[in-house]
């Protein structure tokens, strides 16, 4: 039995390698085929094209049959700023190991370094993209993988720059281990469902590190978003899972770690928000479960604007934020429970690890600053401490049912 | 030694000195007398530059003292109440004043004279009033200046020390110094002074020897002479 399987396996391997070897097309400067375009035009379905090291000045390369294109030692595909460079229109295409530069910039068309249009089962991996407009643009496609790409733009302004990885009307795409910086939005999803965004680093982008619009049932986890113009924006979407991401150093006038706008039924678990002007800015978002997150040194850990109902904040750490929670109304329908608040000053006489006095995370001062932003200049003044204290004793301006009844005495560890 | 012309001083609405003219010659002991609040201390403090006059000029040894401080090198002053920094030791205070003015060895003799040796290492805060006054005297006499101003020098002194003080004053006088004294102890004044300056309501009421005062008031002794001035003027 065992022998039989080995025998079969051996044959299959031999067959495959024969198949592959026989249908490999080499591209190099001194080869009979010296351009990628020619290689594609002569290739048959399921062939492999190997591009050797060198510079190939080509653009508008259309991949219209199922091919595997592999670069050896990072050959350079130079678009000479003339427009889009590679467009995939067929299913089952793999692009691997190319160095693509000089995508054309246009105000009317979104030229990309590599575009996937209405295709299935594609793999885009190990690419390096520089001097680009849009990087990887996936439209109306599904079941693809975008792995290990490095996208380094030189965007300065929003209006004349494009996004690093963009998904539009796509489904079930895995985006993992990419490194995106200096573009407009690091990763942008619009009308794209069931995608997994994992282990990416998106930093120093002009606008958002990650931008979500009208996309449902997506998961993003273990990503790092750092130093982006405005942070991460998740808007008009449902059932999003956000796990173990890090949001750091989004400092600036209209900046935040994460913006939630019209997001429902989602989970935000195990994330770290550090050194942001606002950790999470929430507008009109309901039924979200916030758990095991850590908020360190933010201006505002959480700023709640507009109608937000039945959100649950449990077992989070709030450490040294100037303001823990800001509300712009005095109505509250959200639950705060079992969190650790570094500014909690109560006591624990029965030694059960839970403070005996509830904690009020909304300070009067945060309410005042909401009304008159310039009053922020009085931050940490003694007068402010006094009015905050009196508000704590008898709340007038802040929601009086906004309490954490079980504040933790010690920082939570999971 | 000291010339005062048309000296006026008000504290708020309260006129203390109104047109004092006074010349104090070189050498001799002058007692400045007057009832409480007559302006004795103000006069002395004006000479020292501690009170700034509203009007008038003061010259000390030929120099107008306005806005000056160096002339005080020539004045030794004994303030009325001696209240020194309580953390300082006696020795340190003496050393400090010497440091501020000029070096002298006279202090050793004065310390012996007033028997202050046991107190040299004590903090000033722990001393009795009399001992403090003795320290005060040492500070005032140790610089050998031509003009000495003593404000109530006898306060708190025991009889032995009082005798020593008188001797000291007399000895200074024989050196040709000018000494200005205020005191309430009439016997002390009578015994020691050459000339009396009597101030009444901010003006010089009388200046001259005790003898002249007795004649002027028609009284046989000094104490009565003073008393008659006061009763004549309804003070």
């Amino acid at each position: 039995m065992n022998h039989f399987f080995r025998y079969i396996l051996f044959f299959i391997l031999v067959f495959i390698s024969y198949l592959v070897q026989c249908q490999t097309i080499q591209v190099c400067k001194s080869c009979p085929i010296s351009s990628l375009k020619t290689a594609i035009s002569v290739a048959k379905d399921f062939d492999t094209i190997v591009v050797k090291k060198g510079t190939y000045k080509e653009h508008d390369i259309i991949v219209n049959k199922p091919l595997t294109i592999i670069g050896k030692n990072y050959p350079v595909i130079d678009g000479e700023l003339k427009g889009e460079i590679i467009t995939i229109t067929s299913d089952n295409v793999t692009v691997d190991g190319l160095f693509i530069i000089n995508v054309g910039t246009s105000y009317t068309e979104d030229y990309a370094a590599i575009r996937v249009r209405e295709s299935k089962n594609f793999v885009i991996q190990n690419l390096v993209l520089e001097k680009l407009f849009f990087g990887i643009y996936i439209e109306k496609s599904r079941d693809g993988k975008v792995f290990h790409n490095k996208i380094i733009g030189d965007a300065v302004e929003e209006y004349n720059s494009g996004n690093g990885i963009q998904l539009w009307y796509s489904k079930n795409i895995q985006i993992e281990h990419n490194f995106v910086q200096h573009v407009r939005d690091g990763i942008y999803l619009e009308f794209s469902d069931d995608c997994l965004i994992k282990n990416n680093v998106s930093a120093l982008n002009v606008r958002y590190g990650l931008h979500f619009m009208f996309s449902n049932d997506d998961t993003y986890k273990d990503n790092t978003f750092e130093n982006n113009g405005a942070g991460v924006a998740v808007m008009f979407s449902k059932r999003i899972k956000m796990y173990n991401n890090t949001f750091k150093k989004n400092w600036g006038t209209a900046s935040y770690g994460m913006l939630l706008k019209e997001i429902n039924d989602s989970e935000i678990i195990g994330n770290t928000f550090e050194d942001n002007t606002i950790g999470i800015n929430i507008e009109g978002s309901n039924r979200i479960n916030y758990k095991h997150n850590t908020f360190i040194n933010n201006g505002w850990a959480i700023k709640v604007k507009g109608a937000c109902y039945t959100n649950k904040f449990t077992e989070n750490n709030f450490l040294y934020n100037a303001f823990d929670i800001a509300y712009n109304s005095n109505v509250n329908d959200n639950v705060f429970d079992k969190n650790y608040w570094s500014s909690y000053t109560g006591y624990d006489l029965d030694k059960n690890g839970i403070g005996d006095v509830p904690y009020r995370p909304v300070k009067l001062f945060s309410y005042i600053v909401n009304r008159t932003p310039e009053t922020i200049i009085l931050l940490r003044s003694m007068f402010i401490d006094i009015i905050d204290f009196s508000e704590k004793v008898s709340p007038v301006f802040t929601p009086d049912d906004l309490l954490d009844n079980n504040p933790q005495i010690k920082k939570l560890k999971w | 030694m000291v010339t005062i012309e048309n000296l006026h001083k008000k504290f708020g609405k309260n006129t203390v000195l109104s047109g004092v003219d006074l010349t104090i010659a070189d050498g001799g002991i002058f007692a400045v007398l007057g009832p409480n609040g007559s302006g004795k201390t103000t006069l002395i403090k004006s000479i020292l530059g501690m009170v700034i006059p509203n009007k008038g000029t003061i010259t000390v040894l030929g120099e107008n003292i306005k806005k000056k401080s160096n002339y005080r090198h020539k004045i030794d002053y004994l303030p009325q109440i001696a209240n020194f920094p309580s953390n300082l030791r006696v020795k340190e205070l003496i050393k400090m004043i010497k440091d501020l003015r000029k070096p002298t060895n006279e202090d050793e003799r004065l310390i012996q004279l007033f028997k202050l040796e046991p107190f040299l290492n004590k903090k000033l805060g722990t001393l009795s009033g009399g001992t403090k006054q003795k320290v005060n005297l040492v500070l005032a006499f140790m610089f050998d200046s031509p003009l000495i101003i003593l404000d109530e020098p006898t306060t708190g002194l025991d009889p032995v020390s009082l005798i020593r003080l008188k001797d000291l004053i007399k000895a200074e006088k024989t050196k040709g110094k000018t000494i200005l004294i205020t005191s309430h102890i009439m016997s002390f004044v009578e015994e020691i002074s050459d000339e009396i300056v009597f101030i009444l309501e901010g003006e010089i009421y009388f200046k001259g020897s005790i003898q002249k005062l007795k004649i002027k008031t028609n009284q046989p002794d000094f104490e009565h002479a003073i008393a008659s001035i006061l009763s004549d003027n309804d003070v």
Partner: protein
Amino acid sequence: MFKILKYSFYDLMRSRWSYVYFAFYLLLGIVLLFLNNDLSKAVITLMNVIIVLVPLIGTIFGVMYYYNSQEFTELLLAQPIKRSSIFLGQYLGVALSLSMSLILGLGIPFIFYGLFESTTIWDFSLLLITGTFLTLIFTALAFNIALSNENKIKGFGYAILLWLFLAVIYDGLFLMTLVMFDDYPLDKVSLIGTMLNPIDLSRTLILLKLDISALLGYTGAVFKQFFGTSFGLIVSFITLTVWVVLPVFRIVFKSKKKDF
């Protein structure tokens, strides 16, 4: 002047209160650093202590020292020393001995903590610098009050009022003004308001150096320019210096006119 300064300084360095003050900061430093173990939180707590306590101690010590040494001052006035030297010497004696207590009291625990290897040294130095500035400012203000008030009780009263006003009431009025006129552009007004109170100024100066500064830049362009660049730091330091120089000038001026 330096002789007077020297003696006032030594006198104060030997007084019980200097030790109490020193011991307080030493204890505070030790507790914050060794029992708390969070350096950034320690710096913020220290800031709160410094901007409230340092002015209070400076004011009270200044007034107290002036009244307590009145007779001694008279003794000095009879000596051949310029008035300005006497008062400036005494003022600097008090201010420097208080600053010494502060700097040593907080500095020693920080040195033992191994501060020199950490990046917080700049935040910490800034704390000590502003603390010293506040001591200089409030001791000078205290001397001004004492010079203008013969009556000790009145002098003490005014001194405490001054502290209360600048530490608390001013901010209350300031806040009310900002909230009442919030239809108008307020960024310049609020910066000027900050400059006019040395306690607020010190607070913003310390906040500037902490990461939180970007938070202040949140509200608008003027704030952003002020808090986001070294411009704010320079302006703040210049204003603090002015806050020291003006009361000191008044000490000199007032002492020349005063009768003793």
